[in-house]
């Protein structure tokens, strides 16, 4: 069973870069003014989830 991974709601993201700056695994990048999580690198620490000022990042189950 794989732990849930961070997932950015692209509709909501305002591209502030906060999540990128706190990610301990360099798993998040900004592209076309949206943040994206690299699931392979994500360690499910949820730091980005708590950092997002508008609550646009959630933990999502991975198959």
């Amino acid at each position: 069973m794989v732990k849930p991974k961070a997932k950015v709601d692209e509709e909501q993201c305002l591209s502030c870069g906060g999540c990128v700056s706190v990610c301990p695994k360099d798993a998040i990048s900004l592209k076309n003014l949206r943040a994206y999580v690299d699931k392979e690198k994500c360690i499910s620490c949820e730091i980005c989830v708590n950092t997002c000022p508008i609550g646009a990042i959630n933990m999502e189950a991975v198959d």
Partner: protein
Amino acid sequence: MTYDVVVVGAGPAGSVTARFAQEKGAKVLMIDRRAEIGIPVLCGEGISQRIDKWGMLEGTNWIASTMDGAKIYAPDGTMVTLSKEMAGNETGYVVHRDLFDKELARQAGKAGVDIQLRTEALALLKDKNGKICGVKARTYDEEFEIPADIVVGADGVESRIGKWAGINTTLKPDDLETCIQYTLSNIDYHSDYAEFYLGKKIAPGGYVWIFPKEEGVFNIGIGILASLSKPGKPKQLLDAFIKSRPEFKNATCLRILAGAAPVAKPVETVKDNLVLVGDAARHVDSITGGGLTTALEGGKLAGDTISDCVKNQTFDKESLSVYETLWKQAFGQKLLRDYLVKDIMLGFDDKTLNMLADSLKDYKFDEFSTLSLVKALVLKHPTLLVKLKPLMRLSEKVK
């Protein structure tokens, strides 16, 4: 075309670095992944009028308003004022950050810098000995290499250039302010002051700000420490603050933006063939979360150093370290001092903040700065701020 320098990020720090490096003889390319310089705005848009002295921006279209000072409100409403009348010198502007950034980029272009938008840095180029020799980039769907002797990371709070070069730029959650701001219009309220509201319930580890942008138009935002945040908490707290103020009842929102301000100790800013500037270098004041003046000041120092290195064809860490020495002389002590003040202030409960504000409410500040505020606090409460005293002496020396 070959370049001596590639600057990644066309914000204020990148543009100023590029301009001064190019003006003194280096050939510079600046890239930015965005389609428009300055968009989206990710900033409260307040800046000290100290920048006037530096003459880096022409015209006035980037100035939205001039402020007369700051009013700081303790949790119980006690107000501390830093005003132009008391200080007798410059205070602050509210700027249009999109136009501000465009003017700085225009100045870089005027100096001869080539600027390429919609171009994203993907990785650092390294030669067979591991030496940095440019960046790999992508524009639209095309990937290509930009060889250069010096790479400048001006890629903001989310900087990855430093990480790729082996500098640990990852921020701890207690070294980041997570922010949201609305630009509200149709407000029946007049103020010529920047207003700051403190308190654990209002903004834990940060503050709410209200900046007067135009008549009836205000930037109202919040920054809280990420370590004290929960998903979406800044937005919930800002919405609650606005709801509690009758003057915002009929407001029309013109803009929503999110932001992230590093309130960390500065990192190592030079490596062989690499320089970090601006937010990427964590050149941000930890008390205010403001980084515009240090981005400009540091960018100029970086540009000057880089042009000397290009002239001498020396790109090693030692040669580039002149920049690090210069920014430490210019504002290094201030950044360190305010980082420690941030830590001390985090320990204050609302009662202490009320008491401190009460003791300063009639204080005549000698200048409009965080330094004069910290000085006053140390003067009034030597025991409370005993940890700061040696630092104050240090910063007096370098001032």
